[in-house]
């Protein structure tokens, strides 16, 4: 059991001093330190003038490019080297192009048995009328999966780099947008009317390109880019309040995740069946019908969703740095 110490004795101990210091209940400098009001700093006029003169001289010397020997030499060398570099680059490119076979020649090295096979058996094996789509989404679907992931990673990087500061709270993004919109009309009638007329057609055209990717020119990437451009037009005409009702960062994340996962799963299935020499249960259908060519339609839709979301997200991040 500890002995109870009287108050005066306790106040002399180190622990009491530590306690007061920690709590800040006593200012250690009060009574020990002389306080004086701060006097205004008097600047010597001569010194100030001399400093200004020095600065001016230094600046004049730095920008006096005609008498600065190093600058003159640098300028001359810069011109010579840029000219040499241009000549080098142009000649290299011309030499490279000169080695290419003439356009449209039959027996050039690209026309080997691989393209022969694509052309002859492509329709039969993939069920896609458009050979290009059959190639990129069936024979080389693994490459396309990598491309979709590259796009997704690029968006993640943009999200990391351009995100507005969250520490300022919700006001940060709002302030950003207010700054951004300071120099432009809030509700532009011409833009809004044009957008109201054009946006539905642009988006329907994009959907058409995606859905008919295996029948005609087009596909997931181009269709997604068209839809993204339509969304960007809509947003720049009507503002973010309208789009945020149906498209937020969360929507984008789940959309991309769902599309990429769907792509991965369907390709896993076809890789598995292909590697084990099994028959795929998915029918190829009649060529030319919209529900044909196996998984290609699904893959096109997945790629289109990822690309459309990515284009729109790029715009939003560049514009205001956050949904």
């Amino acid at each position: 059991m500890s002995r109870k110490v009287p108050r005066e004795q306790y106040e002399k101990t180190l622990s009491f001093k530590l306690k007061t210091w920690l709590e800040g209940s006593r200012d250690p400098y009060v009574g020990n330190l002389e306080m004086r009001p701060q006097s205004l700093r008097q600047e010597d006029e001569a010194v100030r003038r001399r400093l200004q003169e020095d600065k001016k001289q230094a600046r004049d010397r730095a920008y006096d490019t005609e008498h600065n020997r190093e600058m003159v030499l640098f300028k001359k060398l810069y011109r010579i080297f840029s000219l040499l570099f241009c000549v080098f680059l142009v000649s290299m490119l011309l030499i490279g192009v000169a080695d290419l076979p003439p356009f449209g020649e039959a027996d050039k090295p690209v026309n080997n048995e691989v393209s022969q096979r694509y052309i002859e058996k492509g329709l039969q094996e993939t069920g896609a009328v458009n050979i290009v789509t059959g190639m990129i989404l069936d024979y080389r679907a693994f490459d396309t999966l990598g491309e979709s992931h590259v796009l997704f990673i690029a968006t993640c990087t943009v999200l990391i780099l351009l995100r507005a500061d969250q520490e300022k709270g919700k006001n940060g993004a709002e302030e950003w947008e207010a700054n951004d919109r300071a120099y432009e009309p809030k509700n532009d009638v011409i833009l809004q009317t044009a957008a109201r007329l054009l946006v539905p057609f642009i988006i329907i055209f994009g959907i058409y390109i995606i859905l008919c990717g295996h029948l005609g020119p087009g596909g997931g990437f181009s269709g997604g880019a068209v839809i993204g451009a339509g969304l960007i037009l809509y947003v720049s005409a009507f503002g973010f309040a309208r789009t945020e009702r149906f498209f937020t960062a969360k929507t984008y994340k789940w959309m991309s995740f769902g599309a990429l996962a769907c792509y991965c799963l369907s390709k896993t299935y076809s890789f598995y069946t292909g590697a084990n020499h099994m028959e795929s249960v998915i029918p190829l259908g009649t060529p030319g019908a919209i529900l044909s060519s196996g998984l290609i339609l699904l893959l096109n839709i997945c790629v289109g969703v990822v690309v459309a979301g990515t284009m729109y997200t790029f715009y939003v991040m560049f514009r205001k740095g956050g949904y």
Partner: protein
Amino acid sequence: MTVFTCILFLFLIVCAVAASLSKSLLNTVLIFMSYSLVMSIIWVILEAPDLAVTEAAVGAGVTTVLFVLTLKKIHAIMGANAAEKEAENELEYRRRRNS
């Protein structure tokens, strides 16, 4: 090669040179956009409509928008208010220097 294709190729070269020589960054971006549009027509002539659609949507559409937004962020495009403010700052600076 038809006359039409020749004209398009000529326009392409002119655009490429003009984009690098233009002083204003906004003009460069616009010239780049017209370059992309002509390029997409050339893709159609070269029988690659897939590429033409992609080039028109990405090259002429989305890339241009992103470039313009970036120019705005770095204050390379000046609206009327910004120019006014700049002039005011200039006046203020001169006043201070003279006094």
